[in-house]
């Protein structure tokens, strides 16, 4: 059994927080360029040009892509043959976030108490950590700083099984229309279908980690992804809600078996700053 000192993840995780906030994944930038080439609205093209220039500037400078540097979501894939030693795993993750947000001049956007709103924790901790046990003896951290403007437009429905795919499309479309320009379109939509109430939400978040442009491996799910993307882009909401053909860059769906009486559906809305990076130890 391999041993890994949890303190060894602190430095790489701090660097990952900074990297994720400054370097837009190449496939997201490519999707913005593709959208720019195919956009028919003049103002929408200007907005897309601005976003591409902003991504380049952030990569070349010490500035984050967006001032909302998010709450840090970590999916930790822990090899089941790995023995974590040297301290508390969650505290090591928080220390990595703490150092990254301090050294990277990133915004501290976390309040300790959700209702009284005070105090700000001052170091952007705690991270939101989801642990998944996987075969092997490696530790892989998927790091995704999540901004609130898009997160706030997310939703979850317990649909009637009879509604099927049409019910999913209807619910998602209504929510996207309601959100309009508020979540900073063009969007990436993570959708979880099946499981239970909480499983659907987690699937929706996980779906956002998939590299942009990769369709689901299940043909019927890939077909639904394409159909939702087309429907959302036909709304005309456009970049920043100012009108245009580009309301979403991609739709990612993950599914899971569920109860005979259930059809849970969760929508996690992601803005065009679809940040994520990976650390492997």
């Amino acid at each position, binding site marked *: 059994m391999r041993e890994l000192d949890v303190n060894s993840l602190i430095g790489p995780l701090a660097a990952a927080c900074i990297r994720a906030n400054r370097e837009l994944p190449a496939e997201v930038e490519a999707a913005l360029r593709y959208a720019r080439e195919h956009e028919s609205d003049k*103002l929408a093209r200007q*907005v897309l040009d*601005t*976003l591409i*220039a*902003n991504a380049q*500037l*952030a990569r070349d*400078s*010490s*500035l*984050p*892509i*967006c*001032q*909302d*540097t998010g709450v840090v979501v970590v999916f930790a894939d822990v090899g089941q043959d790995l023995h974590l030693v040297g301290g508390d795993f969650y505290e090591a993750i928080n220390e990595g976030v703490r150092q990254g947000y301090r050294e990277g*001049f*990133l*915004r*501290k*956007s976390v309040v300790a108490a959700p209702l009284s*709103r005070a105090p*700000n924790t*001052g170091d952007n901790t705690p991270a939101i950590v989801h642990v998944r046990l996987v075969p092997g003896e490696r530790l892989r951290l998927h790091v995704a700083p999540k901004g609130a*403007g898009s997160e*706030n437009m997310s939703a979850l429905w317990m649909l009637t099984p009879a509604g099927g795919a049409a019910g999913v499309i209807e619910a998602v479309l209504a929510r996207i*229309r309601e959100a*309009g*320009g*508020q*979540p*900073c379109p063009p969007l990436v939509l993570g959708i979880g279908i099946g499981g239970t109430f909480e499983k659907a939400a987690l699937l929706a978040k996980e779906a956002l980690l998939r590299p942009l442009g990769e369709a689901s491996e299940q043909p019927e799910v890939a077909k639904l992804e394409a159909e939702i993307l087309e429907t959302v882009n036909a709304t*005309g*909401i*456009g970049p*920043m*809600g*100012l*009108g245009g053909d580009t309301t979403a860059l991609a739709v990612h769906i993950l599914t899971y078996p569920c109860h005979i009486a259930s059809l849970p559906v969760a929508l996690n809305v992601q*803005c*065009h*700053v679809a940040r994520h990076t990976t650390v492997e130890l």
Partner: protein
Amino acid sequence: MSRLLALPLSKEDVKSLSAGDGVSLTGPLYTARDAAHKRLVAALEAGQELPVDLAGQAIYYCGPTPAPPGRPIGAAGPTTSSRMDPYAPQLYAAGVRATIGKGERAPEVRMACREYGCLYMVAVGGAGALLGQCVTSARVVAYEDLGAEAIRELHVEEFPVIVAYDAYGGSVFPGDEVLE
């Protein structure tokens, strides 16, 4: 081509603009978001003087990232304006001439712009690095304890915005209905 205008905007500037116009702003902007708005409106309701004179000024819904060495500010793009909708009409009534943020807002805000002869403008959300570069100076002028949410006086140079709601009830958003 976007029009160059100096801040603070005059009443004539406001009257001359229509929803959809592109404008480049140079001059002072005051940042305020959720927590600062709560305090500002509480002060107004208590009949107290505001900690910073916002009459005729523009409020920018923004919580910037910390300034790295050698810069006045970090990334400084707009946050979602609708969260400030419960407060905006009172601030327009108190003399604020323009607000800047992103996204659609409640009809009450558009009605307040028409009633008081004010504007709501949008900047490109998620373009924080580029917009931060338009800021040439920044200083905290109120509520320092709020950190990123403190009120800052920014000086901006050719800060690009689009008029979203004009002083006549017009909106740039395709989904917005005509006001009665």
